[in-house]
């Protein structure tokens, strides 16, 4: 059989399992009572072992086997899960990741001898420097064989709670608890949260690894009361899931990209068709054009939905990163994540990992203080980093907050004055100016400033990447309280709803994601804000930007009545004064490959419905 076609699948699935292993390890380390984590780890490693062996990757299979033996011993309580064991488990999972990648690339090295020995020692209850001899020393190969007969058997369980029972959710939890007395339970569906909220039709499914027979298990589960059925469905590749779960298939991302591109062109073609149809007074043509328009909109929504991926997929690598950083830096950091379920377009998600990485690393490295410093400042010794996602209008805000020392503004000012003596730098930095300074390329590389060294490197990279996505980066920092970086990105890149504006006869597209409202420019409401022109809109003073001035348009006089677009990013607002508003349109933005010579306020170009090109304004650059 030709196995090569399964290699990609092996790689993809192994990566998923390894990532979940890291999460389970982190959770288990934090909550030693989370015994379900061990079961999950065991199964993941077991799956990787099976896949590796099937593919003929003996290096992967061998390492997975040793790791599995240790996990089994831990699960049986034969070996204690102490700090040294966790360190070894993390190391082994990392090594397994390396082995999997190597196998995927066609190499299959044998596991590192020292790691293999350490795993075997730990499995036999011999710590690295624990006195040997307490337990009989078994050759490595005997370890699994010894347990082969009494190894717990994994199986799926389905339980149905009587339909007239009260609090069926709580009853289901009770059934799970009873089952846990006989083995390790995992993959409970529906999840606990839904059970608690009574979002539950009485059907419960989970997996259990247990030595008990089906009969013993069924009896224990029934003892929870109100149980009508306990079944053990035939083992499937995946744990049994209730019927309301959608079926899923894997789709190559490249295929979705092409589909998205085609839909993008379809949207542009539809827009053109609409314009053309309007020229003919033909009801049948208009009707068909409308119909196509609706269908394309629906299709566009479906394709975008198919590309949406929860940000948790990117977030999940950070707990491990922060843990390792904290260890290396000698700090204590509690890392928390919120809003993992918020979805973003896959292509944005792929690009956002790096900027987040820089910001999270910055927070751990420069934000959070050493434990003793924190205690001295009256803070808890354990610092906190929160990575969160929230949905806003048509964008998603990703925040990295730390409760550390905050950025030392005086040091930044001093450093900037040294680096660029010609530039005027105010004594008191606003958050915006602070960001501009630390985001300057190479800000921190020139000379180390204590407490801020390295600050700029990541911010500069993050800023560039985020801007390339049509997103924005903001900072808020308070001395002693901490720093928050906020990244805002559009939900999807490919198709943007935009407001078309005219200035001096040229058309410009403003992405609607950042448009708060449009108002009439009222010359009487003009005032000044820090020597800049500003307008007062509902008692708020908003600085103005005249699109005509921006594009250096001298042709034709500006009309008397001019609409004004209020752009909004986070707390910041700008009033963009234009000649006329021409309505909304879905546009496909073509980013510029060579931005040299292009003014900063231009974010890309597009072809409008009537076939004419237009520039797309970058809202962030106007603020």
């Amino acid at each position, binding site marked *: 059989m030709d196995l090569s076609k399964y290699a990609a699948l092996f790689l993809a699935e192994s990566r998923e399992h390894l990532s979940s292993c890291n999460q389970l390890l982190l959770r288990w380390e934090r909550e030693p009572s989370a015994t379900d984590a061990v079961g999950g780890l065991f199964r993941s490693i077991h799956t990787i072992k099976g896949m590796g062996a099937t593919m003929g990757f003996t290096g992967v299979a061998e390492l997975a086997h040793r790791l599995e033996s240790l996990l089994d011993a831990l699960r049986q309580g034969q070996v204690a899960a102490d700090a040294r064991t966790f360190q070894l488990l993390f190391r082994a999972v990392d090594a397994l990741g390396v082995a999997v990648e190597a196998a995927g690339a066609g190499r299959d090295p044998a596991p590192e001898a020292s790691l293999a020995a350490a795993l075997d020692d730990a499995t036999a209850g011999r710590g690295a420097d624990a006195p040997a001899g307490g337990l009989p020393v078994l050759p490595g190969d005997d370890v699994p064989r010894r347990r082969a007969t009494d190894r717990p058997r994994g199986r799926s369980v389905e339980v149905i709670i009587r339909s007239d029972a*009260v*609090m069926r*959710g*709580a009853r289901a*939890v*009770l059934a799970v*608890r009873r089952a846990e007395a006989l083995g390790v339970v995992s993959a409970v569906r529906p999840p*606990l949260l839904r*059970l*608690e*909220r*009574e979002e539950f039709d009485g059907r419960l499914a989970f997996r259990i690894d247990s030595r008990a027979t089906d009969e013993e298990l069924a009896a224990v589960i029934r*003892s*929870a*009361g109100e149980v009508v059925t306990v079944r053990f469905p035939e083992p499937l590749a995946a744990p049994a899931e209730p019927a309301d779960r959608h079926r899923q298939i894997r789709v190559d991302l490249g295929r979705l990209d092409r589909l998205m591109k085609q839909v993008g062109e379809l949207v542009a073609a539809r827009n053109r068709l609409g314009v053309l149809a309007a020229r003919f007074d033909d009801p049948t043509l208009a009707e068909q054009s409308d119909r196509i328009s609706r269908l394309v909109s629906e299709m566009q929504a479906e394709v975008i939905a198919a590309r949406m991926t929860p940000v948790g997929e990117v977030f999940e690598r950070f707990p491990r990163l922060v843990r390792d950083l904290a260890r290396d830096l000698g700090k204590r950091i509690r890392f928390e994540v919120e809003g993992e379920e918020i979805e973003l377009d896959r292509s944005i998600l792929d690009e956002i990992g790096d900027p987040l990485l820089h910001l999270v690393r910055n927070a751990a490295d420069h934000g959070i203080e050493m434990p003793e410093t924190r205690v001295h400042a009256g803070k808890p010794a354990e610092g906190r980093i929160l990575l969160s996602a929230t949905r806003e209008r048509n964008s998603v805000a990703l925040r990295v907050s730390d409760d550390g020392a905050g950025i030392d503004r005086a040091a930044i000012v001093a450093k900037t004055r040294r680096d660029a003596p010609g530039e005027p730098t105010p004594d008191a930095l606003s958050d915006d100016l602070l960001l501009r300074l630390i985001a300057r390329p190479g800000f921190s590389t020139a000379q180390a400033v204590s407490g801020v060294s390295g600050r700029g490197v990541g911010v500069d990279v993050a800023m560039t990447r985020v801007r390339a996505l049509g997103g924005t980066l903001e900072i808020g920092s308070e001395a002693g309280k901490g720093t928050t970086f906020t990244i805002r990105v559009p939900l999807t890149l490919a198709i943007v709803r935009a407001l078309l504006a005219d200035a001096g006869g040229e058309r410009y597209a403003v992405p609607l994601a950042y448009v708060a409202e449009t108002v009439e420019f009222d010359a009487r409401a003009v005032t000044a804000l820090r020597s800049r022109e500003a307008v007062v809109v509902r008692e708020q003073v908003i600085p103005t930007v005249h699109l005509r001035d921006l594009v250096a348009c001298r042709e034709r006089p500006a009309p008397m009545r001019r609409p004004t677009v209020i752009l909004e990013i986070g707390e910041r607002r700008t009033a963009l004064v234009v000649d006329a508003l021409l309505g909304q349109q879905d546009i496909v933005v073509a980013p510029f490959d060579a931005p040299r010579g292009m003014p900063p306020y231009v974010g890309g170009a597009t072809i409008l419905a009537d076939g004419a090109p237009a520039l797309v304004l970058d809202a962030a650059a106007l603020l």
Partner: protein
Amino acid sequence: MSHTVLVCDDAIFMRTMISDILTQAGFEVVGEAESGSQAVEKYRALKPDLVTMDIVMPDMGGIEAVREICRTDPEAKILMCSAMGQQALVVEAIQAGAKDFVVKPFQPSRVLEAVQRVLG
């Protein structure tokens, strides 16, 4: 010998009613508690075979009491008495170690079924 029971509820009405149901079924109610901390104290003193525990009580709540009792005696047989709409709390109590639950308003047959299940 009949099983001994500790009844915990802040309302005399509920304590009386549960005691009556259990006594009529042949159980021996050896004590009553009107707060969580009292429940913990009396559990230690009386070592009853079964505890019925209200969820919402002054001083120390029922869930906290379950946690406290199970900390010293993981085998403690505790039956939660909850009102409708407290599902999340019941789940929390189960996680804390409660062995079963009944929902108010009580039907004597349901209470006794649950008691039998808990005593196994």
